């Protein structure tokens, strides 16, 4: 039974070449992303990190098919992406379960769109829900679930159609730290079982390192790829690895890359000139001295 889901994605090669996208606004076009090239190999887990507003969602939405590139090509297994489809599953930061469907109904939705008959829909949904530890909740409506549970259902729903790629846009951003750790573990487990390509957007560096095979770091707007970092940590990954020197080294490296860009994104370093105007007395020192 589970082979029908597990054995599918031998493919799932995402290729984004020289991608650029501008949003039209009243003040003229806003260049969100420019000349970005990334790829996800079949079965690979790739993250994108970058400062707020650097165009991570824009990039992901182009792969999902919601946005057309202004420049460059976005392809999946060599075919240009033309609109959203079931071969790219997506999980949004906002909870996006259908409130009028039960947990199981939500998971079955994609299969229903594929015109699968009721009994095979039922079996596939139950298998996946079991894998995510959601069996006890299959007849609940989303409103009665916690945030973590909703995202878990969201991931299961996106995986149910057997997509080639799973796209996630800060899926755990709204969760508390403990829940987030559990969700990361669940996502890794499901990814390893299903051997699917994953493109994961986050601004949490630890999360990106812990989950990924590779991490792309983006610059401030207009976003381009600033660096590509391989994560050589062995699998399966344990929570304890987050304390290893290897992990901390990667973390330090990424941190300084992001810091530079975040400062740019916020409009430059705090400069002393601006602080000179201030004369706040702090135990005899001026604020500028303290900084």
């Amino acid at each position: 039974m589970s082979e029908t889901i597990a054995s599918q994605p031998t493919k799932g090669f995402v290729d984004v070449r020289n991608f650029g996208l501008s949003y039209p606004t009243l003040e003229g076009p806003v260049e969100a992303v420019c000349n970005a090239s990334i790829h996800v190999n079949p079965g690979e887990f790739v993250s994108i990190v970058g400062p707020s507003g650097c165009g991570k969602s824009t990039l992901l939405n182009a792969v999902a098919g919601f946005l057309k590139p202004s420049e460059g090509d976005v392809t999946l297994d060599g075919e240009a992406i033309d609109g959203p489809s079931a071969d790219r599953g997506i999980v949004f930061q906002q909870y996006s379960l259908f409130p009028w469907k039960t947990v199981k109904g939500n998971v079955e939705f994609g299969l229903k769109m594929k015109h699968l008959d009721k009994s095979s829909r039922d079996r596939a949904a139950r298998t996946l829900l079991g894998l995510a530890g959601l069996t006890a909740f299959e007849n609940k409506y989303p409103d009665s679930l916690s945030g973590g549970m909703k995202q878990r259902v969201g991931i299961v729903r996106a995986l149910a159609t057997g997509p080639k790629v799973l796209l996630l846009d800060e899926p755990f951003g709204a969760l508390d730290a403990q829940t987030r750790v559990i969700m990361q573990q669940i996502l890794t487990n499901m990814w390893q079982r299903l051997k699917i390509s994953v493109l994961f957007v986050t601004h949490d560096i630890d999360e990106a390192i812990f989950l990924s095979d590779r991490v792309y770091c983006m610059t401030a707007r207009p976003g381009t790829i600033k660096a590509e970092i391989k994560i050589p940590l062995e699998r399966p990954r344990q929570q304890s690895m987050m304390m290893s020197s290897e992990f901390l080294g990667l973390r330090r490296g990424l941190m300084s890359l992001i810091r530079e860009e975040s400062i740019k994104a916020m409009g430059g370093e705090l400069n002393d000139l601006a602080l000179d105007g201030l004369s706040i007395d702090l135990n005899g020192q001026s604020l500028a001295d303290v900084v």
Partner: protein
Amino acid sequence: MAQVGVWPYLTRWYLVNRGGLRAVLIGAISLVLFLLAWHLLTIYRVVFFVRFTNVPSPAAVYESLTRAMHDTKFFMHVMLSCRRILFGFALAAIIAVPLGLVMGRFKLVHEILFPVTEILRPIPAIAWVPIAIMLWPTNEQSIVFITFLGAFFPVLVNTLHGMSLVDPVLVRASQCLGAREVSIFREVYFPASLPHIFTGLTVGMGVAWVSLIAAEMISGQFGIGYFTWEAYSLVQYADIALGMICIGILGLGSSALIRGLGRLVMPWNRT
């Protein structure tokens, strides 16, 4: 864990439904007080700014009711009004809901039809009576038409409102799960708008009764509105109050019916 047996069950039932019981109790007391006030005001024929001299007392209305219970004519009036509501309201729902869904989904349809509906909407259904009489060959048809108009616009406006509030993220999610136009419409837009559609149906039902009663009073020959007006002409004051109370109960009942239907159709919506 949970104890079995009748007594523990009743105790738990009481604990869960305490709030509801309280509301029912207070509601009953308030109704009794209302009846008492009505009784006293009419028995003593109070004249204080308003005159209760000719207003029938509860006892007189009760007497009138027992008489009406043995009178097939009264039932015929009630049944006729119910039938008009049923036809007019059903017609309004069948036309306004799909129209609202289509207008909400397709901009061009919205742009074409919205100005017309906006101009017609503020016209009270009752102002249509002369035109209705010209439009329709029979009196019965024009009354159903007036009822239809009363229900039509609240249903349309609320359906449109529901469509405008559909979360685009849900539409995107459905597209990524392989949904095409028809499925998106059926599986996302329609259920997402349902709560507002039902708000529209409830409001529409209220306005349908208002319009029906007014139409029956003006141009009817039968129906509970006509019964009430006729009672005034025939100086049977107790029947006026009987007709009014009957209208109130029918309106209440039909709204409750819609709310119940809504709960049945939307088990996820627990408000």
